[in-house]
């Protein structure tokens, strides 16, 4: 089975970090697939790719992305967390919204 692109882009050392951090890969892959479907990217989206600073997501896509995250986690995102800071990368999103 080939290595998912979000690992390849970040390198093998990050790969092992992910395993240590206990990230749910299915959730990461879902988030990444959503982004790719919404806006096909010319860059690979790694765990630490800066989603806003690198233009992967713009303000118009962000609302639908927030709704998708809510749907995945099964509850609304609190108003205090509706801030670009919490959507900086897949890792930040995972740590903020999915890590129990």
């Amino acid at each position, binding site marked *: 089975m080939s290595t998912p692109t979000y690992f390849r882009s970040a390198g093998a050392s990050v790969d092992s970090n992910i395993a240590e951090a206990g990230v749910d890969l299915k959730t990461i892959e879902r988030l990444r697939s959503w982004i790719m479907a919404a806006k096909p990217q010319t860059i690979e989206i790694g765990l630490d790719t800066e989603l806003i600073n690198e233009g992967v997501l*713009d303000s*118009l896509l962000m*609302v639908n992305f927030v709704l*998708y995250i*809510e*749907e995945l986690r099964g509850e609304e995102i609190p108003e205090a967390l*509706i801030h670009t800071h919490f959507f900086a990368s897949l890792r930040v999103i995972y740590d903020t919204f999915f890590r129990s």
Partner: protein
Amino acid sequence: MPSEKSLPDLLRRLCELSVEHAYDPHRELEWPDSLPNEGVWMSVDLLSLYGTDCLEELTKEQLWKLSRYELANFFSLTVHGIRDLMQQVLSCIYNTGYEAESDYFHHFLDEENKHMWFFAEFCKRYAGKIYVTRKMQFPSFAEDDIQTFIAFAKILISEQIGDFYNMRMMRDESLPAIVQKLNRVHHEDEGRHIAMGRRLVREMYMRISEKYSEQRRREIVEYLRRYMEFFVSSFYNPGVYRDADLDDPYELRRTLIRHPARKKFHRQALRTTSRFFSIHDLDLEGAM
């Protein structure tokens, strides 16, 4: 065909009209203690389920409940939109290049502040909340003048679509009187704001057109086309569907946005806006 007013004449006239129509919503609006739960609060043909089987499947009580939360969502969107546009206008009111508009901007801010207050007041009194916005603001274009143009174009788009809803509801006698009244008051002020917004957007775009490449202009058009889709989509709020006890609110949102009857409605709601932009060389017809 009458000749167009010069910008100073237009601004002077708009300021005069603002003074003539000045009002104090704190004194002039009468708020009932409660609104009836029997009957709709929002025109049925403006509900996000209208034209689909989903609406037909609702009981009368479910329809009434949905209309209450959909109206609260519309007013909440207006509250958040006004806050954004006030910030935009405040950020440039006394900047170089806006000398002519400054006086008018004071009236604009005054009126928008009133609108924001009475729409928020309605939501708090009768719906018990203002729906949270999921919008996050960050610039989409690096060039300051394009970003400013985009900001004012977005204001115009949201005002024109909001006005489409206001005009329908201010005449709908099936709605509570306070709902009709707020829509009417907003519509009457927005006529002036839209007139000025059109003038500003048109003049800003003329400068953008002279300065930037066709490719950059295409990117601007594409962004605004997407903004129109985005804005219309915000009427499909999963939180509303959850409050109205409808199943699977996120899937319902997706289904409705794609529904042919809803797409037809989107084109109606966007017609005035699309027409304005197309005659000024911004073809946004592809939206929705």
